[in-house]
């Protein structure tokens, strides 16, 4: 009897010891993993990324960050996968990343780390899609590191305008520098102050000789459920307009390949320098009351096979022109080439637009104040002299997404 009792006691004791040892192993594993997560966050910090947060769950490493270091968002994700691959504890992990812009989650997806036949580590993207704000907020409830709010960014963009001239000088040019000060406020909030500095001018428009403002805007993006994005911008826009504009966008489809967009704006005339009722342009501002309402409705269809966007828009532009505009854009890696055609009244115009990525590929590490060139140099060529001019607020959905649609990610990674 007592042998049975002793045996029973020994069994209970062994069980307790075994349980105790198991608990000890779990706590140690978690500590090691958390140390690896902290190490990864420090590396992302050292890389210059902002709004960094990382968590780990079973075999998945969740990372979110905002890229202000690399010109290309895909390059930033590639760098992330390199940093993760360098962490031995995360070699077998799936990396679930979410990019941000202005603290708003934009594109999310997974990077599967697989071993190739020669033993090397391959990073394979999968399930790339637009991020859901609610899911992202829930997953990354902790305070991010290196917050991107209340930071100033100085950006420099060249502008080139060309016109046909006379036989002696067949191409007339105007080269301007567009310096911008961007202030990133809270989530989705942004102030832009952009000017025009004339560098070289053969077009000789008197008002173009002035250093003058181009954009003075305060904008706010609000992510809504079901892939809806609302944005509002107030301030001074291009083409001598000031006022307010709103944009509502929604993606449809399993792969978000359809986009519907509506824009509306209420503006008045504002100009620096003064050009109305003066013999020559004069330094100073001129304003009129709000007097003009314009709008546009657009539909886009994305073709992932060729990294292409097709767009059809109906818009009321300045001077009361009702315009139908068709565009086709294709991304060749970072370079973007688009062709457009628009028609209004009995006139039409067509041409192409080119967005060429500007040097450098990687900017200096952003601090509280950051200097960089703009991502792209833009050039638009119109074939005829029939223009339907519309102003720009400087804000557009594709700018928020850095022209990266999820379906373009695979081919560019």
């Amino acid at each position, binding site marked *: 009897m007592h042998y049975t009792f002793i045996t029973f006691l020994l069994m209970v004791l062994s069980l307790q010891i075994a349980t105790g040892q198991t608990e000890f192993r779990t706590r140690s594993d978690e500590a090691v993993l958390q140390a690896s997560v902290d190490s990864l966050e420090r590396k992302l910090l050292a890389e210059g990324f902002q709004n960094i947060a990382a968590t780990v769950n079973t075999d998945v490493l969740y990372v979110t960050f905002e890229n202000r270091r690399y010109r290309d968002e895909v390059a930033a994700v590639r760098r992330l996968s390199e940093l993760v691959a360098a962490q031995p504890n995360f070699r077998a992990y799936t990396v679930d990343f979410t990019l941000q812009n202005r603290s708003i989650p934009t594109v999310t997806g997974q990077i599967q780390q697989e071993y190739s036949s020669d033993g090397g580590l391959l990073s394979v993207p999968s399930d790339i899609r637009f991020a859901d704000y609610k899911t992202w907020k829930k997953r990354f409830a902790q305070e991010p590191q290196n917050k991107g709010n209340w930071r100033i960014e100085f950006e420099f963009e060249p502008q080139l305008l060309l016109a046909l001239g006379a036989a*002696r000088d*067949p191409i007339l040019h105007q080269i301007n520098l567009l310096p911008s000060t961007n202030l990133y406020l809270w989530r989705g909030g942004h102030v832009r102050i952009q000017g025009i500095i004339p560098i070289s001018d053969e077009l000789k428009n008197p008002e173009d000789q002035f250093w003058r403002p181009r954009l003075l805007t305060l904008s706010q993006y609000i992510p809504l459920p079901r892939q809806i994005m609302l944005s509002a911008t107030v301030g001074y826009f291009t083409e001598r307009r000031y006022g307010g504009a709103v944009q509502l966008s929604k993606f449809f489809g399993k792969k978000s390949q359809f986009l519907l967009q509506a824009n509306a704006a209420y503006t008045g005339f504002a100009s620096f320098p003064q050009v109305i009722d003066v013999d020559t342009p004069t330094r100073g501002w001129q304003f009129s009351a709000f007097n003009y309402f314009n709008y546009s409705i657009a539909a886009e269809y994305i073709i992932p096979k*060729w990294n292409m966007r097709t767009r059809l828009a109906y818009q009321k532009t300045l001077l009361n022109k009702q315009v139908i505009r068709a565009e086709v854009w294709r991304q*060749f*890696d970072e*370079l973007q*080439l688009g*062709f457009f055609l628009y028609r209004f009244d009995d006139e039409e115009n067509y041409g192409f637009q080119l967005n060429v990525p500007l040097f450098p590929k990687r900017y200096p590490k952003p601090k509280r104040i950051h200097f960089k060139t703009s991502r792209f140099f833009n050039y638009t060529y119109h*074939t005829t002299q029939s223009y339907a001019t519309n102003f720009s607020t400087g804000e557009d959905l594709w700018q928020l997404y850095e022209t990266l649609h999820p379906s373009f990610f695979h081919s560019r990674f």
Partner: protein
Amino acid sequence: MYQKTIFVLCLILIYVSTSNAQDTHFSQYTSSGMLGQTGLVLVPTAQLSTDRAIAVGWSYIPLPSTVRDISTNIGEPEFARSARINFLPFVELSIRFTKTKEINELGDRSIFARIQLLRETDKRPAFAIGAHDIVGQVPHYHSFYAVTTKHFDMNNGMIVGGHLGYGLKTRDNARNEQLLGLFGATTLRYRFVEAGLEYDGANTNAALKLFWKNRISVSANLLGLKHIGCSAHAYFVL
């Protein structure tokens, strides 16, 4: 000026031919015609370059084959600069600036667009439709055409090509006689050399082209089988 240009091009031809002595790689790029489109001399073919390919070029078209002024029936030798892109695997877009003595430095702009409707296979020819100079004030070499192309591999490294097309005039102020009605060409390609003979709807032309490492092609052309023209193109892929 023209003689100097021809002399320089001959030097380029000599350099390309000698530097290709060891080159056995067949050019993946279709050759460019003098108008900037994929083709032989003036005749377009139904081939398109590889997707995302860009070609930039320059050509000199001697007097008899240039576009004549309707009222004076006087033409000028033409210098043209062109740029072409395969915007999609089956869509080719070109822009061409044609300069003569009477036109300013930039030149008259022409836009060419081509769509390949059928790709060539072992059994089937390629088929494409194209529109040359369909917009703009003064059309040069205007045509709205369909063309088909078939190649035959002779199994000794030589490839023979046949190209046949038909062009329509859809602009009243078009001044060209080429590429209207029936046109066609035959080409013979061996490694980095291509020779061809074509009928452009008005004249018979011949061409000899050399390719260098899929990057550059130079062409000596005999327009009307009498007058020497030339062109050079550079290729790259985005």
